[in-house]
Every structure is written in C-alpha cells, then in structure tokens.
C-alpha cells in the first residue's frame, strides 16, 4: 500500500508509534508514557512520530494499533495482537528462523518463528509481572536508584547476588536483607538482572538466533549481554527494540488487507 503507514503500540507502561514510508522504511517514531489516558498517549505518540516523518495525522493511509490499549486508539483502522506485530517486525528484519524474547512493562513474551516467519509457538508469562519491567521498577525503588541507572550499576558489579524468588514482593524483601548484610548496590542490580533472565529463559528452550526486544532490553543493554553469556547462543539486540510492536503494526498497516482481530 502506498503512502504513510502508522503503527501504534499502546503498552502498559509506554506507548510507542512508528511511521513507515511506502518503501516500508522507518521515517518517524516516538515513545511516551502510557499514563492514565491511553487515547491521549496514542495521539501524542502518533502526532510526534508523524511530525518527525514530515507528516500529519491526515496524511496517514492506514493505522494499525496493538498492545494492551490497542482499542483505545481512536484513529486506528484495525487492531492486531502484539504477538503477531512483534513477530511481523522480527521476521521483516531478520528473515530467518528465530526466537523472540520481548520483555515489556507488565509481561514477557517468547515467540518462536520458523524460517518462513510462521509462528511455531508463543508463550506469555502468567498474570504475575515477575521478571518484567514492573519488577525492575520495584527493585530500583527498593535500592533507591533511578531505573535509568540500573544498567550502569550492573556493569560495575563484581559478582551476581542471586535472588531466591522471582516474585516482586519476596525479591523486594530479600533485597532488604541483602542490603543489611552489606551487599553493594551494583551486585544486587546484577542479581536483579539475572533474575529477569532466569525468568524468561525458563519459559522456553533458547537456541539458534534469539532476538531481544521491549523496553527492558532497550534501556538495559547489559541484560542482553548477560543473556548472551548465559544462553550460549546468538542473542541480538535490534536498533529499536522498544519499537518492534509499533513497527509490526505499521507493517500490517502497509498491507492491502489487514483483517487482524478486526474489531474496528
């Protein structure tokens, strides 16, 4: 489809928008906190990303929304699940069999694609947000540091302080105990990262090409390095890991028929 294609991924924590031109090149993008009004966040993300691409909302040929708030995007033409959108973007970029690990604000997804881009399997975490961005946010608060600084702290660690629980509440209590014992913040942050990796690694057997996406990987590239070391396979971090849902949605918008879950 010619024209300007817009994808909006309204996640639990951040709202992402991506604009593709008629060559399916990324020409604009924006990430904004989802906040308490998904509609408003979607509008800000869309308009800002379109502005970056030199366009306005009126220029959009088609818009597909995805993510938790996918139905809160008033200007959408269609909705497609984030599982499909992430898969679409991953295969468009890597064009090979792969395992996608997406760590979001509230949930983790593991999607296996075959060499034709078909989904072989996908797994999401349970209702519990253990091992997600929400877990990191809580741990940062417990440690009295900014989330943005976690990557820096983890890199400075000289060991991993292993946490016995994936549970945010139990891990938080455990961290308090470790602080009392005199563990350094760096070693604790590395332990928190290790906990995230263990949680998502337990969801599926990691082999072949593994691609990590989502805000956690985007903001903490050291987690990707740790995963690479632990998994012992090829672990890739794309240029825009947090935008994969939005890019996938925009790719669907660029196709002639986007039937999707289709409740628009």
């Amino acid at each position, binding site marked *: 489809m010619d024209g300007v294609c817009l994808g909006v991924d309204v996640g639990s924590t951040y709202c992402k928008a991506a604009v593709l031109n008629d060559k399916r090149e990324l020409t604009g993008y924006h990430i904004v906190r989802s906040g308490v009004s998904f509609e408003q966040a979607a509008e800000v993300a869309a308009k800002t990303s379109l502005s970056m691409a030199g366009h306005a909302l009126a220029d959009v040929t088609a818009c597909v929304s995805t993510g938790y708030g996918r139905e809160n995007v008033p200007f959408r033409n269609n909705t497609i699940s984030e599982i499909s959108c992430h898969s679409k973007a991953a295969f468009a970029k890597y064009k090979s069999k792969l395992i996608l690990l997406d760590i979001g604000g509230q*949930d983790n997804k593991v999607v296996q694609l075959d060499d034709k881009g078909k989904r072989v399997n996908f797994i999401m975490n349970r209702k519990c947000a253990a091992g997600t961005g929400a877990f990191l946010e809580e741990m940062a608060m417990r440690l009295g540091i900014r989330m943005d600084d976690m990557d820096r702290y983890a890199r400075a660690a000289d060991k991993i302080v292993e946490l016995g629980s994936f549970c945010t509440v139990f891990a938080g209590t455990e961290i308090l105990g470790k602080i009392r014992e005199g563990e350094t913040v760096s070693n604790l942050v590395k332990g928190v990262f290790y906990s995230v990796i263990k949680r998502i690694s337990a969801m599926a057997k990691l082999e072949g090409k593994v691609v990590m996406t989502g805000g956690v990987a985007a903001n903490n590239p050291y987690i990707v390095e740790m995963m690479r070391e632990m998994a012992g396979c090829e672990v890739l971090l794309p240029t825009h890991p947090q935008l994969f849902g939005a890019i996938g949605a925009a790719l669907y918008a660029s196709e002639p028929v986007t039937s999707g879950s289709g409740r628009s």
Partner: protein
Amino acid sequence: MVEPLEQIAGKKLDLDLLKQVVANSKKTSQLWSQCLEINMNQPAPWTFFDSCIHMGPAVVMRGMESANSYYVELLKELQEKVRSGAAAVDGEKHRLFWAGMPVWGKIGSMSKTFGSLKANVVASTYCSSWVFDDLDAERPFESMGKVYSELYIAGSAERKARVLQQFFDQFKIDGVIYHDAWTCPFCNESRYGMPVRLNAKNGLPYIVIDGDLNDLRCFSEEQSRTKIEALMEELEGI
C-alpha cells in the same frame, strides 16, 4: 459398603430402586452425550459455554426422571437448530476445543469474545466428564465402580492424549485452548508438556490460558484476550 451405609442412613437398601436409578443415570448420560455430540455438525448449534450451564442436571440430577426430561427437550431443540442450519456463532470460521475446567466467573465474557472473533468452542473434556456409557442397571455396583474409576481425569497422560486426539478428529478442531486452572491440577491438560507433545503430533495451534475455576485473582482478562486474539490470527495466517 451396603451394611455400614444402611446403618448411617438408618434404612435398608432398596436394590430395585438402586437399579432404577442406575438405569435412569445411564439414560441421562446417553442423552447428555447426544447433546454434546451434536456439535460435530458444522456449524455447531451451541457452544462449550452453553453446555457448561446445561450440564447441571447431568451433574446433580443424574438418575432422576426430571433430568432425562430436561435433556429430551434440549436435544430436540438442538436437533432443530441443526436442521435449520442455525449456528451458535454466526459465520463460524474456527472450531476450537477447551481442555480443562471453565473459568466459571468468565463464561459469559469468554463466550462473547469468541463469538466476536467468529470462533466457536465446540467441545471440551470438562462437559464430557458426565458421560458414563458403561453404567449397567443389572450390575449397579460393578458398573458404578467401573465408570467412576475410568473417569477421564483419573487416566494416565497417555490415555488423556489419546482421548484428546479423538475429540480433535471427531469435532474437526482447528485450535485448542488449554486452561491451566491453578487449583485443579487433575482436570488440567496444560501441564507436564501435554500441549507441546500433542502439537508436535497434530500441528494444531494452541494457547494456554492461566486462570482458575473460581479464583478470579488468578485470571487476567487482558492477557487472556491477547492470547485468544493471537490464536485467531494464527488460524487466519496473519
């Protein structure tokens, strides 16, 4: 068992009455089974969520004449729907199987979600758990012992896998929903790798929904909907 039970009840066993109740139970079971099997028709005239409601008499009134009258009427209605081509889900595109217990507090919203996606959950292990083909009025004790020890949920993983595959074939299933009910590990086919093993054999797409039969704190509406929509998209090749 008769003697101690007679002491507890304070009256003698009426063997003729027991035989009559077992005969009625078998009739209930047969009628209920026919009601469920009618969903082998395409389009299916009712849904798993409907049958969760209508299985009441088969569960708690088995052996009573009134349960049989109920299912005679229900069967007539379902047969009429099949004759007239009435579908429970207009434009039925996908036929799904529900493995495990229902999320009781969500059967209404789930029914609407699947309906809006043109998908019908046409069969389940759960509603079929009240089908007891081998009840025999002439051998009431032995046959009761047999049917209750041969319950689906009491079987081995291998047997469960065979039964599931039979369902998939008979009902022309396109995809499977496994409900991992936290508080019911027995009526739960989502554990110990069952979905992966079956998928490796039959290639049917599946999802596992986390939840519970009663405790809705274990259930996430949003996550479940995302999984269901992703399954539908997979079935549509998106």
